[in-house]
């Protein structure tokens, strides 16, 4: 039996760069400013501390709507894999917590197969009891497919 999850989204792309280059795109504020908020959305501020447990925050303006995405880095295994928690102020239920896992596999001639897996945690678990959300995220991280 797999770990319960309320919902899961998977997006895959083949990219014209090696996994180490792609990994750095995920933890570089200047790079993120361009691709994490493609037009017409734009970032008004990006801060990140790319260490395990370090926080990130993206302030985004999208079609007149201001939203803030925040999270913490759970795993940073350059160049193969990174994982972080993810919350967005635009979500209707503020209790919602989620985890994003990005895996980067060498593909063809200098390319990378990127797999983004975004898992929504069940509300009753994400609300957190003793130890709270970070512990649950860590447990979930252990169970996610590698």
């Amino acid at each position, binding site marked *: *039996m797999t770990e319960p999850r309320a919902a899961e*989204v998977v997006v895959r792309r083949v990219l014209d760069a090696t996994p180490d280059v792609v990994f750095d795109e995920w933890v570089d504020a200047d790079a993120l400013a361009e691709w994490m908020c493609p037009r017409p959305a734009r970032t008004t501020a990006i801060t990140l501390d790319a260490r395990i447990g370090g926080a990130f925050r993206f302030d985004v303006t999208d079609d007149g709507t201001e939203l803030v995405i925040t999270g913490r880095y759970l795993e940073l295994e350059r160049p193969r894999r990174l994982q972080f928690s993810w919350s967005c102020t635009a979500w209707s239920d503020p209790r919602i917590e989620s985890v994003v896992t990005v895996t980067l596999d060498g593909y063809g001639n200098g390319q990378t197969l990127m797999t983004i897996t975004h898992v929504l945690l069940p509300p009753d678990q994400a609300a957190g009891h003793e130890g709270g959300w970070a512990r649950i995220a860590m447990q979930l991280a252990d169970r996610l497919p590698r």
Partner: protein
Amino acid sequence: MARRSVEWPSGRVLVVAAYPELGVAAGLVRREVRGREHWMSLDPESLQQAEGWIADQLSFWTTRADALAARLSRRAEARAR
């Protein structure tokens, strides 16, 4: 164990039906104990919320993956010149 039958036009529910405990843990299935019987029912609100979240995040990450792919392709082309 008694079960209430529920129809729902989504393949996702088949998984929940096959693994009711998973559905309960995920907040998609309600369980009610009546004496020795356990009654299971879908929580349509949770299910709808999950479906909405899936659609939003699929759109979000598709756009971002496309933007990253375009950025890296531009750089690869610039290097090749």
